[in-house]
Structures are given as structure tokens and as C-alpha cells.
């Protein structure tokens, strides 16, 4: 039997709604988050400013997809990351990584473009990595693999820590969180969201410099 993507999504959302119980308003599928208005500034360039952190986002971020797996609008995601970085007196630069939606690769591409060598990669659903250009792609400085646990506080702290690494400091890593029940609840949905996200990947395409009005 063939089922449309829309229908599968609806089923999952219904299951999630049930799970949230009667007390809480089930807001996720009702609230459509509008896309962000990005300005594309041409091919991304390698920075020379050692006082910057580059944030890399995958192709569908803020455009075809607009919120994380726990419904944080992508606008808020960027606001928190920017704020965290700027709190440490470091500049943030945004690039779209078009060639992949693999979080390690997105983060590493960002790090390679960064004047400080420090980059953040974040997927549409919220999975995040802080990377450094001299590390292997599958290594990282800090990894936040469970997207349902990446909330606003975590995002702000991730921005702050990335900035501290850029300044050559050795920050305490953002406290690791763990929810053993995230998988049964969210993994099917995460697979679905990732399949959607990868449809927009353009293999071999260069990254794009972005500006955005938050």
C-alpha cells in the first residue's frame, strides 16, 4: 500500500498529540511557522577574522522546513545561537551548506569556512555539532545527538561555548542530557523529517553566504 507523505506525517502527529495528553494544548501541527527571509550573498568565503564563529545550516533549514522536532521555530534557533556567540564578544556568520544534510559534514564545512576555525552545524530537526576545522569530520568538539533535547537554553549555551573555543578558551562542555525514551517517541519522526530534508541536498554544490533578518 502506498501512502502519501502528508498522511504519514499526520499519523505521527496524531500519535504525538495523544501522547501529550489532554491537559496540554497540542500545538505542533496547528502552528505553521512561516519561512525565514534569507538574503543569499553568493558563494561562502573562508573568513580571515579570527574573532568569528560560522553557523552552517542544511539546504531545507528555515525555508522548506521551519521548526525543530520540538517545535522551536528556526528563527528562534538562530536568535539563540547568535545571542550566545555575541554574548562572548565574538561575531557570528551564517552559511548554507548545500552539498549535504549530514550534521558532522555541515558543521565541519562551517568550521573550515570560519576565520577562527570553529563552526556550528545544526540540522532542521535540531541535531547540533560544534566543530573545529583541524578535526576529522566524524570527530567534534561537542555533539548534541538527541534533537528532542536541544532546547533554547541549550542553543544559547552552544553559541556561547563555540565563541569561547573561538577565543582559544577551554570551556566546560554544555552539560550532556540524555532521555532514554526519546528514541521510541521520536525516532520514526526523525527518520521521516530527515528523508524530507535530504530531498533538498545538491551533491557537490558549494556553500552559500547568507544574511537573515531575525
Amino acid at each position, binding site marked *: 500500500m502506498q501512502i502519501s507523505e502528508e498522511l504519514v506525517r499526520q499519523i505521527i502527529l496524531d500519535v504525538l498529540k495523544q501522547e501529550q495528553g489532554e491537559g496540554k494544548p497540542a500545538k505542533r501541527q496547528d502552528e505553521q511557522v512561516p519561512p525565514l527571509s534569507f538574503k543569499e550573498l553568493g558563494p561562502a568565503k573562508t573568513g580571515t577574522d579570527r574573532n568569528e564563529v560560522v553557523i552552517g545550516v542544511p539546504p531545507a533549514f528555515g525555508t522548506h522546513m521551519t521548526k525543530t522536532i520540538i517545535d522551536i521555530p528556526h528563527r528562534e534557533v538562530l536568535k539563540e545561537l547568535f545571542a550566545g556567540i555575541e554574548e562572548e564578544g565574538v561575531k557570528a556568520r551564517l552559511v548554507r551548506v548545500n552539498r*549535504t544534510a549530514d550534521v558532522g559534514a555541515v558543521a565541519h564545512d562551517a568550521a573550515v569556512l570560519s576565520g577562527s576555525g570553529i563552526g556550528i552545524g545544526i540540522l532542521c530537526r535540531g541535531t547540533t555539532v560544534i566543530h573545529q576545522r583541524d578535526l576529522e569530520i*566524524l570527530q567534534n568538539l561537542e555533539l548534541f545527538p538527541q534533537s528532542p533535547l536541544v532546547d533554547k537554553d541549550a542553543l544559547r549555551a552552544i553559541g556561547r561555548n563555540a565563541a569561547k573555543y573561538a577565543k582559544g578558551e577551554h570551556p*566546560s562542555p554544555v552539560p550532556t542530557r*540524555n532521555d*532514554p525514551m526519546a528514541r521510541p517517541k521520536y525516532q520514526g519522526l526523525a*527518520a521521516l523529517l530527515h*528523508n524530507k530534508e535530504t530531498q533538498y541536498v545538491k551533491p557537490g554544490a558549494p556553500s552559500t553566504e547568507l544574511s537573515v533578518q531575525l
Partner: protein
Amino acid sequence: MAKRQKRFLVLADRPVNKDGFIKEWIDVGLVAMDSPNDPKPSIKIENGVVVELDGKRREDFDMIDTFIADHCVDKSVAQEAMAIDSLKFARMLVDINCPRSELVRLSVGLTPAKVVSILRELNVVELMMAMQKLRSRKTPMNQAHVTNLKDSAPLLAADAAEAAYRGFAEIETTVGVVRYAPMNAMSLLVGGQTGRPGVLAQCAVEEALELSMGMRGLTHYAETVSVYGTEQVFVDGDDTPWSKSFLASAYASRGLKMRYTSGTGSEVQMGYAEGKSMLYLEVRCIMVTKGAGVQGLQNGSISCIGVPGSVPGGIKTVLAENVATVLMNLEVASGNDQTFTHSIERNTARMLMQFLPGTDFIFSGYAAEPNYDNMFAGSTHDVDDYDDYLVLQRDLQVDGGLIPVTEEGVIAVRNKAARALQAVFDELGLPAITDEEVELATYAHGTKDIGDRNVPEDLRAIDEFMKRGGTGLDVVRALAKRGFKDIAESVLRMQIGKVAGDYLQTSAVYTEKFEVLSAINDPNDYEGPGTGYRLQGERWEKLKNIPQAIDPKDI
């Protein structure tokens, strides 16, 4: 609905309804074992070269097809094996009169689509029968996860000791913070040998670091060398079947046991399943493993279990992939290592699929810590399930690899392991483990019961240890100097084992006397009732004697 039926309200609140279920979505491969996009079995061989595999001509092969055709398929048995009707082959899998050796001989003549078409003929009970008959090592065993949320070294050492003492043959750690890896590995090295000499330990992190730790003697084996069933997912992992084979050889050349990891659902999870069923793609992984000459595989969906777990027939498929692995004469570490449900019923039912027939490692990670401390994102069973598990073994007379223990015994090994690690840290100039930390780790349930260590200080110190070329021998020296002669001896014996290399054989583990037990000297000889592994004699006496059972003599 305006008015809810009260039974439905109760049902809606049941844990099982917190799980995510998905109807099949075939276009992207959200389907367990039967997709219309799966190829039909076929093979053509010309001049000793496979020129057609499962309906695809050689010039159209992707790199996985090429690798399987050139390195897994045995051209001398392919025609014979492929000519056997799939249903007939399926019956041979469960026929006690058809020996394992015959099936293993034929297995390398099969193509991926053929294996899938055979497995589709079996129901779950038949799959369990096939597993009982086909697993590589006669004696079933078990692997534990030893991790915690704070990467606390003394707690890791204590937990490793308890896990080894309770009977786990292998223990595996990973990290919250990547740079902690060598310190976590060291904690398991010391703790594991304290709990039971000969236990194998590993630290699952990024592959280059993992290999480096193995070569330095901080670990004994590795299993998180991942392979995938589609080319794009391989490429996303920055790898090919050849680069993975190279890595496998690197481990083997240094005397380190290793197995690959794969599992249903990973390709669709990563967005590139090409519309194929999860089982078809997984069988390709199994055949890549066989082709690489690697002795074993961790599969059973593993970290993607939420994906097959959400579609119809998914948990049956997970057993089917384990069976395909042992059919290829590989060691299997059969999953059960990741939470996939809120429902205790589903959880136990899923585990029985491997527990009842027995596998080389029933769990490829039973949580030897409370699940909140499990840094593999939670296992199906944790420390709070120990007694349930021991009772299941006793109820069903099944050897699940764990032995009943006493509280006094556990306290003693936990304390000794934490003290031993304290001494090692002191000798190696690592940040001190205080007496209070030893005491807290000894009696802790999990990290909620212990304090915080100074993380940046720990990281700086272990970085420095690695930079100055620290190895397992430094640990041996420190233990010996500080009076932990028995642990020093065990840690050293494990290093000697790497030079001998005997534990590189399929399904190998060490006994507490450092004898290797593997598919070579402990081969599975199951051929029906009265044969194969039987839980009896001394072992059954040990397993049935749980401390909480009342002794009639005492009343």
C-alpha cells in the same frame, strides 16, 4: 468524539501508546522486509567473475554490489546455492537433519536478494530455531554497556567491575564528552579486570581515536565500525567498503578483536534507502562484512531500532537480520541495546527473540548502569532489571549469560575497582580520585548519588597522557607498584593476548583463566534435542540459585 468510551481512555494512557508507530512508506524505504523495489534474486558468472547480481548487470553495479560480488560471493558454490528453491532453503534452516556446516558452506553462494527471499519464508519461532542452530559459538553470552552521564571515572570503574562480576563477557563504554574517551577506556580496563579476569573492554568513539586507544592497549576490541547498505550513506560516513576493510585489517594487525556494526533502519534514517526494504539493505551490510573477512557483526537494528520498531513486522525483521548474520558464519552481537518502547511487554517480547535461542552476545549492550546514565541513549534493560532477568533464566532454564550475585560480593568488587583506579590516577599524575569519591562510587545507584569532577582538569590531564604516549603498560606498572598485583597481572595478560592473537577467531572471548572460547574450540553443534548447548550441571546449579529463593532446609 464527544463522549469517550472509558476503556479507550485507559488504553490511550498505556505506555505502548507513547510509542511512535508509522504505516509503511515504501517510496523512501520505511518498510521492514518486503519492498516492491527490492530486486529479484539472480546471479550470472562468466570466467569466474560475477557479471549479474540480483538482476543488475556488472556495469550498473554500485560499490556495494561490486564488493559483494568480488569478495563475498563464492563462485564455486554460487550456482549450486542459488539453484535451491528459497522455500526449500528456508526449511533447511530449521531442519535438525541438515547440519549447520552444510548451510554455512552454501551461504556464501547466495546473493542478498536470495537471502531475503529465504528469510521471508520463516515465522518468528522458525527464526529462533534457525538462530539456535546457526549461531557460531556454542555457549551463549552477553555484552554490557558501562557509561555514565558525568563520564565519572571512579563510577565507570565500579560499574565495569560489577558488570564483569555478574557475568558479562564483554563491556563497552562511550562518552558524554568526546575528549574523555581515553579516561573512560582506562576506567573499564582497570574495573573490568577487577570484576572478572579476562573480560574484554572497548570504548566506542570516532574510529581513528578508537584504533589509537586499542593500539595503546587501553581497549581490547572494537565494534563500532559501521557499514551501510546504500552507497550514499556510506559516502556520508566518509567511507567505502574498502576503507572499512582497511580499518578492519588495522585492528587485526595489532591483535585487536573487532566486528562491524550495522542494522536495519540506518539507511532510511539517514535519508538514502532508495526505497528498498530495511532487511534487504541490512543483508547487503552482512555480506560486506563477510567479504571484508571480519569475524563478526553487531546488528539487530541497534541505534535505529525506533525505525523498524515503528513499522509492521519490524521486530521480526530484527531477528531475521541476526539469523542472516550467523548463517554467514559470523559472530553476532544481537542488539537489545537501545530503548525502543515505553511498554514493558514489548520490551520483553523483543528481547526473548534472542534470549530464548541464545546468540553469541544476546545483548550488544545491557545497561550496567541505570538507564539515565546510559550514554548510548538508553538500553532495553538496565541495572534495575537484573533480578527480573535472573528469574527469567531460572523460570525458562535458559542461559542468558548472567549469574546470581550477592550484595557483599558486588560491594567488594566495586570498591576494589575504584581504589585500584584511584591508585592508577595517582601514579600517572591524573587528577586525584578522593577517598570520598571511592566510597560514593562503591555504593552508588548512578550519577545522582555522586559528586562532580572538575571536567576541564580531567580533560587536560588525559589529553596530556595521550600526548606523552601513555599506554596500557603504564596502567600495569601503576597497579603493580601500588599493590594491585592480581589486577596488574590480568591487565598484562590481556596485552599478551593481543600478541598471541587467538582471540581474533570468530566469536572469541576469554574465560577467567585466560583461555579463549570461540567458534573454533566451542563450535555450535546443535542438531536437535540432546545436542548443542544445554543449561545443566554446575552452570544450571549456579544460575538457579538466586539469593532470594527460600531454602527448605532453613525452615
